[in-house]
């Protein structure tokens, strides 16, 4: 039997929260599947972080400490994980579904001729096999997936599992990795120029999604409600992709993360990448004509209706209430 290998991630000089979530998934599967938990911590000058991770759920930590791993590089990371899989004799390899995880994990699986399950929110071991749950159709349906045989690489959705809290008997050992095959070259990291609205300061945000249907409808329907409430306007990604609104309106994992007192989502389905940007709002109202839209799972109050009936009427009523 193999081991479970957790591939930890370092972000801003610390082990990422998502890696402690992986550790908790791995520790519980260790109990049910009778496997040992091993981990990989990679980077440059990261001995102390590896030590820390080994005591907080990481178990036996393999440490790949090399200048080639200073900045994220898909080929260097893949080489390190391949070496760790071999050293750990792992048959379940867990990564987080983060920008480096989604880049490395499928490539790793193909290289190992292993099965792959992406963006799981739950993994169980029962009936002698690993079983996974993940969302399909952008969050509208759940798939229950089973691993038929052999080695499996899986990525886990950040935020889906509480992070590991206890302490573990850990150890660290150096892992040697060959970087001859590295072809991708890291150039730099950049931040988008954040000129525009800082939505994080707004008490009320009224966001429109693809369901708003046309650029002028934002000015005619969504903005007036935001104005009436003294709030700001936001949007989902397809609205920005289509060029209907500039990027600084985008709420979500690749836009702004907001936490207003009131978030109103109109014509937004509620894909996970949007939800991570707004689900911590104090109060959420969703208006969507599809009763099964996942947005209703995070909303406090919902209206199943055409936004073009409800939003203009609400704007009028709010203006009326202010007298």
């Amino acid at each position, binding site marked *: 039997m193999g081991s479970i290998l957790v591939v930890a991630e370092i972000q801003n000089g610390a082990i990422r929260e998502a890696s402690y979530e992986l550790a908790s998934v791995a520790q519980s599967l260790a109990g049910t599947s009778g496997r040992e938990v091993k981990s990989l911590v990679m980077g440059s000058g990261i001995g102390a972080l590896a030590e820390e991770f080994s005591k907080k759920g990481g178990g036996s930590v393999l440490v790949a400490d090399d200048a080639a791993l200073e900045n994220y590089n898909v080929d260097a990371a893949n080489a390190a994980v391949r070496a760790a899989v071999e050293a750990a004799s792992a048959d379940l390899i867990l990564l987080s579904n983060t920008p480096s995880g989604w880049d490395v994990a499928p490539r790793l699986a193909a290289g190992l001729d292993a099965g792959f399950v992406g963006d799981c929110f739950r993994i169980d071991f029962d009936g002698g096999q690993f079983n996974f749950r993940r969302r399909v159709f952008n969050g509208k*349906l759940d798939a*229950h997936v089973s691993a038929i045989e052999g080695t499996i690489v899986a990525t886990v959705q950040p935020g889906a599992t509480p992070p590991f809290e206890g302490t573990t008997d850990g150890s660290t050992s150096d892992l040697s990795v060959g970087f001859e095959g590295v072809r991708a070259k890291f150039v730099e990291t950049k931040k988008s120029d954040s000129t525009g609205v800082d939505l994080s300061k707004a008490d009320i945000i009224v966001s429109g999604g693809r369901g708003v249907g046309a650029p002028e409808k934002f000015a005619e329907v969504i903005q007036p409600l935001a104005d009436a409430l003294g709030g700001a306007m936001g949007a989902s990604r397809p609205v920005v992709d289509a060029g209907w609104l500039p990027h600084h309106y985008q709420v979500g994992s690749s836009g702004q993360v907001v936490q207003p007192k009131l978030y109103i989502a109109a014509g937004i389905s509620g894909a996970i990448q949007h939800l991570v940007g707004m689900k911590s709002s104090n109060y959420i109202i969703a208006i969507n004509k599809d009763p099964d839209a996942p947005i209703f799972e995070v909303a406090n109050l919902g209206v199943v209706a055409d936004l073009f009936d409800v939003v203009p009427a609400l704007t009028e009523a709010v203006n009326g209430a202010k007298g």
Partner: protein
Amino acid sequence: MKIMVCLKQVPHQDARLDIDSAGTWIQESNIKFEINTYDTYALEEALRAKDEGECEVVVVSIGPDRTTQALRTALGMGADRAVHIKDEEADGSDALGLAKLLAAVAKEESPDTIFTGFMSDDDNFAAVPPMLAELVGLPHTTAAVKVVRGDSSLTVDRETEGGSYEVVELPLPCLVSVQTGINQVRYASLKGIMAAKKKPLDVKSVADLGLSGSVGAGAAKVKIEKIAPPPKGDTAELLEGSTDEVVAGLVTKIKELGLL
């Protein structure tokens, strides 16, 4: 120069999703299909390279008969040639099976660049592109929001999180998976659609690609046991009634929150 674009035909974004009788996928009869959103951006990126100079654009798709429509649309937008992998033996492939099929075509075509979408709107694997790169032996990156072509390399901005980007340089040939919003996608012109009818569309079987027994349900390492609506947890309290009643309820709530 040659660019290969992988595109998948998926249920239309507004299609009704009813679960099939086996409970393992959705009912595909009586719904509309379209080119996966991400893949339209991948195709546009290839067509822009073609607009700038000598370049052949080959579109490749794995799917049943209906997929011809997606490939014809791509040809209508300006692609030069299409390869349709159509074979019941490919049904039930996992991401690795799909990547193996596409890799067989990529090895025959030896393109300078492969553009794919970041993720399919139905399976949501986001896995086929890095797998394909590994199987063909190409460097790759994912979630590209900008691609600058040099003589022997591509410089790509890949989107990470919260408005950050990583700039990465890849030697050619390479594979780039494209994020939505990288460009503004063109429509097929009437003239383009007419011209598309005469463009070559090759159909290939699993055996043609030398992959009998290595793809499809029998070779899959992971399997969908069941598909179901997400369990209804703590869902929203729903306001029902006429528009006036609903609006009155919303106003009451906003007042209660002290925001009006």
